[in-house]
């Protein structure tokens, strides 16, 4: 099962390698890791999507907590958070297919950020499922390149306030 963990860390050089090193040495499998500074410039947030069972995730949480610059670790509960991933997709678009691709982009709420004679680049920020749908739609035209940021997630206040 996939789990989304949110990890607050001190914003120091070397912290990322301390955290990422943990995954390989404890043999944890992670799907993605996204990191960026928070509203407090001394603190960064890492969003980690990991694959595993309850035991693995509990261990992952505990081991992360042992890393000195790690301030807080939370595993989000399904439905309690919003997650997004930004991706850039470069797809073949010969003149006769350009309109088709523009239609797909409009339908899926993707933004066209670059156009050349033979390709189009789409910017897409949505959930993992929607990203996969978009890829399925674009595949017949020939996807040249995909660049993804990894998932970032935030808790829904609407859910928390109801609890």
């Amino acid at each position, binding site marked *: 099962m996939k789990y989304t963990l949110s990890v607050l860390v001190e914003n120091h050089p*070397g912290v990322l390698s301390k955290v990422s090193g943990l995954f390989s040495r404890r043999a944890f499998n992670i799907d993605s890791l996204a990191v960026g500074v928070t509203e407090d410039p001394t603190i960064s947030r890492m969003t980690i999507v990991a694959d595993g069972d309850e035991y693995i995730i509990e261990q992952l949480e*505990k081991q992360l907590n042992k890393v000195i610059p790690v301030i807080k670790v939370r595993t989000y509960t399904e439905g309690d958070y919003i997650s997004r991933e930004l991706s850039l997709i470069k797809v073949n678009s010969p003149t006769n297919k350009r309109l088709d691709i523009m239609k797909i982009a409009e339908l899926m709420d993707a933004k066209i950020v670059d156009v050349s004679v033979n390709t189009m680049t789409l910017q897409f920020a949505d959930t993992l499922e929607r990203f996969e749908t978009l890829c399925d739609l674009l595949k017949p035209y020939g996807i040249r390149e995909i660049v993804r940021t990894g998932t970032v997630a935030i808790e829904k206040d609407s859910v928390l306030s109801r609890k």
Partner: protein
Amino acid sequence: MISGAEIMVKCLQEENVSVLFGYPGAVICPFFDHLYNTEIKAVLVRQEQNAAHCASGYARALSKVGVCVATSGPGALNLITGIATAYMDSIPLVCITGQVRSDVLGRDVFQEADITGACESFVKHSYLVKDTADLPRVFKEAFHIASTGRPGPVLIDVPVDVQTAEIEEFVYPDKVNIIGYKPSFKGHPMQIKRALDMISESKRPVICAGGGVLSSGAKPRLREFSEKTGIPVVSTMMGIGVMASDDPLYVGMLGSHGRKAANVTIHNADLVILCGARVGDRAVASPDQVVEHANVIHIDIDPAEIGKNMKTTVPIVGDMKNVLGQMLRDVDYTTPEEWTAQIDQWKKEFYKEPEKTEGFVEPKSFISALSGIVKPKAIMVADVGQNQIWCANNYRIKDGRFFTSGGMGTMGYSVPAAIGAKMARPRRDVIAVCGDGSFQMSMNELATIAQENVNIKIIVMRNTVLGMVHELQDMHYGSRYAVTELSDIPDFVKLAQAYGIDSAMAKSNEEAEKIAREMLKSDKPFVLVCDVSPSTSSK
């Protein structure tokens, strides 16, 4: 104005460091230069790995942070095995390394190695200091992190220009404030109540004590708890010494190389109380079998250890001394007599008298006899290999300590660790027991022993083979002794004498015991070489 190097020395003084172990080099020279003519004693080892082991023995003997220092590149890299050894056994160390100038970092200059990167997975924390002004905070934090919570090694890498740069004044911080590091000290009262309820319902309880009991200084409380409730105690290798070996409530060391009675006890218990033990594979090979019929209370300062290797019914996170104190206040339980009687019977049933071989020293009975020759508070340091198992199972500890490289199994640990232990506790008998394999991994430290006149007694079990692997080859590889024969062994007696250290060879237990008695009377180091039959097994 004050330089970084002087600040480093002042930090050590603030932390009451009186001895450190190290090896100099170009980029740690500013530090050593300022150390010179201070009251801090710097012991020059003969290889950096042994500086870390010395610091480890020192730290264990005094329950304070051990300090080792090396230069950049090869010096720092040689420390690595020592650091990892300390990490596995949760020993508090502060390891200081010199580093190349910060403006050339990353350019592969002479003697440059990314030591913080290399050590990442086996330090509790590490620092690469880029600014002289950060040194006081970094040192304060390093000593705090190394010694609190679950102890462990902390590495401070200091580029040479950070040591030579000067700042206005030295101010050592009073406190540390690391927002992500707040170890819990007291056990949760609810969990303690649950644990006590579980104890009162149990019929066949056993305490499994590990190194955590010793490092938290909870030995007297554990004894008190066991005596008050009558709950028998088994220990891991790291836990040897939590109870005196002849304490009726002590069953023995458990594990693949432990006492059968201890293993049978834990496998028949209905409640296992893990105290500062991480249930490593060598201690309990099949934890799933144990939990099939037993509840588990796991007390540990490190939450990540709870549930890692053994399913836990009641987890208690906290310092052992506090948790046992809390439990002692409210516990009201007496172990059923049938259970205690059953264990006593197992202890008798499974005890095997070692067989003697003519013309050799029988190591098991010799170690057992040695227990009666040394002072009660002696520190016994066992190396790794058959000698470790002989010592772990046959040394009858009283109120002393037993050190060994438990988790990492680092050969060559005993001699340097014994040096550190003796410097920490000069009035105690300190004995290093090693094999001829492990002795040859750190016998260069005879020079350190001679230079500092460190009164340790080294016992070399000379069986001319790498015994532990030899045994493995007997069991699983059709006795094909691939690369385990130590032919043409040097004359260790002459070797010791070459360093100006007295030495003698024993070929029988009577002879070994006689020499041991004599050597312990002297205030000089001694190397006792025992001729052991290569066919003597660890069992």
